[in-house]
């Protein structure tokens, strides 16, 4: 033994490793490539798929490396013919009960099962037999489930359980009839699923995917009577280019705008603009609640997954939610009123499309309280597919800018795409409105970063504002329990997805920790390069209040920019 390390041999090379490691972790650290399918670090380590098998010479046995701890003197072989053949056989068994639908499957190029079949060189379908038969679930506008493509890896179940604490889907039944499903085999729409789509990010097959609306959008663009405007969410521009082979964290705003024009949208606007508008309304709401002794803490309301979560699991706190619509829905409302009036467009001929990093936004757009404001929501992944379908290379496009009026935004709007961003944007504006003084230090670094829960207090004049930020719904649940136990805050930001929208369920695959970190860095880079970094300084925000809403929280603002919530329970 070497200190607190253990000595192991991998393919005859000696390594000194941490005794807490699994064989897989040790092998990965040593640069050995072991195929994995069900494995998801810290979330799904159950040794179910049997593709990460290695041979342990000491025992003569094959072991699933993802769940086998290292031990001193262990001799591991990762590439014997026995290992290769057994991995391949196990994969063939998985494929024998998989609906093989590859050319028409939405997952297609992103399918891990397909990639691993190539990697392990499966060349024939040896085990043709009875396959499990399940109905598809197309009950929601967000997520589509085809359990005949499911290989029961349990990633979705455990992301839903561990990362999100939603527990909407789990294994039902037994043996050949086992299916990942909702309680009582109901469909997703009847379940407490929040539509966040984290399951669709980790599904290694096409068993859970977003619901595509690409054809509907093409049809709107092709219709000469329709005026089609598009809005782009803050987190899309820092992730879209990954789908075109660029490195994560590439800022692709200009190419994205150019691509959208090329696709045929009549105006390319920005959700960042209505993020600024959200800050005006939500900041005002916060100040009003503090001054008038209103319900506190105030909870943010931008994340539709979070909204559905609180409606199911903490409905007794609905009054704490900001009444502000999300930036997506504010855009829809403003496009159909202010913009349509200004441009003299009949709202019936106006089609509003959103590009979102989010599957829950599809569901949000169809909520009855806000129906008709946003017509179609495409995820970042769908936009990439649409561009590929159109047949041009987005990487080669010359950068263009968003259209004005609803397209100019501040750095505060940009950071909405990251966890902590809404909080920081709100603090920048609230500080100046409350104190009447200029905020010198704009970066509130305490609310930045990937920590699941961030708490801090900010001195604003006489007020010591206590704030908290949660990302990932299991962290949201923790903060809700803290509040239940009496911990006091003034303002809490909640984002359903880990990392905030940049880790949204509609973003390009794969969404690893490193990828998310690069996207976050890019978002703060956009912020720091902006001319205006506070929402209330955005000249087009000033203009929309002068010309239309008069002031934040006005009667008209309430009519168009605010909403209500539904008591759901579980």
């Amino acid at each position, binding site marked *: 033994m070497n200190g607190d390390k253990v000595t192991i041999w991998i393919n005859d090379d000696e390594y000194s490793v941490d005794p807490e490691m699994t064989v897989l972790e040790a092998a990965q650290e040593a640069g050995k490539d072991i195929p994995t399918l069900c494995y998801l670090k810290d979330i799904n380590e159950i040794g179910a798929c049997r593709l990460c098998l290695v041979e342990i010479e000491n025992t003569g046995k094959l072991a699933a490396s993802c769940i086998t701890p290292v031990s001193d003197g262990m001799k591991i072989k990762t590439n014997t013919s026995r290992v290769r053949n057994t991995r391949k056989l196990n994969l063939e068994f998985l494929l024998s009960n998989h609906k093989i639908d590859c050319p028409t499957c939405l997952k297609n190029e992103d399918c891990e099962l397909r990639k691993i079949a190539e990697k392990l060189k499966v060349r024939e379908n040896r085990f043709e037999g009875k396959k499990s038969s399940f109905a598809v679930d197309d009950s929601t506008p967000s997520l589509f489930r085809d359990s005949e493509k499911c290989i029961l890896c349990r990633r979705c179940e455990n992301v839903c359980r561990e990362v999100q604490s939603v*527990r909407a889907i*789990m*294994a*039902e039944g*037994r043996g050949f009839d086992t299916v990942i499903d909702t*309680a*009582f085999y109901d469909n997703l729409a009847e379940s407490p699923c929040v539509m966040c789509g984290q399951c669709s990010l980790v599904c290694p097959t096409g068993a859970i995917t977003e619901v595509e609306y690409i054809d509907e959008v093409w049809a709107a663009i092709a219709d000469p009577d329709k005026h089609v405007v598009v809005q782009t969410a803050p987190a899309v521009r820092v992730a879209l280019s990954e789908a075109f082979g660029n490195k994560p964290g590439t800022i692709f705003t200009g190419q994205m705008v150019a691509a959208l024009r090329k696709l045929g949208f009549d105006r390319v606007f920005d959700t960042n603009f209505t993020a600024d508008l959200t800050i005006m309304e939500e900041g005002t709401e916060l100040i009003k609640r503090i001054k008038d002794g209103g319900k506190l803490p105030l909870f943010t309301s931008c994340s539709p997954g979070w909204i559905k979560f609180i409606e199911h699991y903490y409905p007794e706190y609905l009054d704490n939610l900001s009444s502000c619509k999300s930036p997506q829905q504010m855009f829809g409302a403003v496009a159909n009123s202010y913009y349509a009036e200004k441009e003299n467009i009949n709202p019936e001929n106006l089609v509003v499309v959103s590009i979102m990093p989010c599957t829950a936004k599809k569901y949000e757009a169809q909520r009855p309280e806000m129906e008709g404001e946003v017509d179609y929501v495409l995820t970042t992944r769908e936009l990439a597919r649409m561009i590929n379908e159109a047949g041009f290379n987005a990487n080669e496009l010359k950068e263009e800018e968003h259209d004005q009026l609803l397209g100019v935004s501040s750095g505060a709007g940009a950071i909405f795409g990251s966890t902590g961003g809404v909080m920081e944007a709100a603090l920048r504006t609230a500080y100046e409105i409350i104190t009447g003084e200029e905020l010198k230090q704009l970066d509130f670094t305490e609310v930045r970063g990937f920590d699941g829960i961030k708490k801090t207090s900010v001195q604003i004049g006489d007020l010591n504002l206590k704030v908290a930020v949660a990302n990932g719904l299991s962290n949201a649940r923790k903060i809700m329990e803290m509040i239940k136990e009496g911990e006091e805050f003034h303002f809490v930001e909640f984002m359903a997805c880990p990392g905030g929208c940049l880790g949204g369920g509609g973003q390009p695959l794969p969404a690893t920790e490193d990828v998310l970190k690069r996207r976050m860095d890019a978002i703060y880079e956009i912020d720091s390069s902006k001319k205006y970094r506070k929402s209330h300084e955005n000249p087009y925000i000033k203009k929309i209040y002068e010309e239309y809403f008069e002031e934040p929280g006005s009667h008209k603002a309430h009519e168009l920019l605010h909403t209500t919530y539904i008591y759901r329970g*579980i």
Partner: protein
Amino acid sequence: MKVVEKKNEWQEKTEEIDNILKNYKDDSSSLIEVLHKVQNLVGYLPKELQKKVANSLNTVPGDVSSVISFYSHFSEFPKGEYQIAICKGTACYVKGSQKIIEKIEDKYGISAGESTEDGKLSLEVVRCLGACGLAPVMTINGRAHGLLNPEKAVGIIEKYLNGEM
């Protein structure tokens, strides 16, 4: 599927159910134990009752239905007055229990896991009753009957139905 769904029958036993549940408040790790007790009391575990158990143990309905759909002992539907459990373990299977199952299914119009419309019979297929020397074996309300063939099995069931056993 033919099932006898006597609506809300279990609600007459709400007080007794609550007496069971109150000992396991928020203790989701006792789920299986609680399900045994509640099923022993009510006879089956309908959806609404599963939700009630989930709520009391501070878990979600899906985690309850997941357990119930895994273990064949637990039933979402009421069982018959006479509960047939027929063994399809290795010994019984080799000795022809499949033919007996088919015969019963055919004669009484039920599949495994179902009950007859009149609520008299329910059929369950189990793996090994631990009486392989008597294969093929079935139990009716827990009483074992061995060395069966399809005709003999039906004959025994008829005796139960006629009150002769």
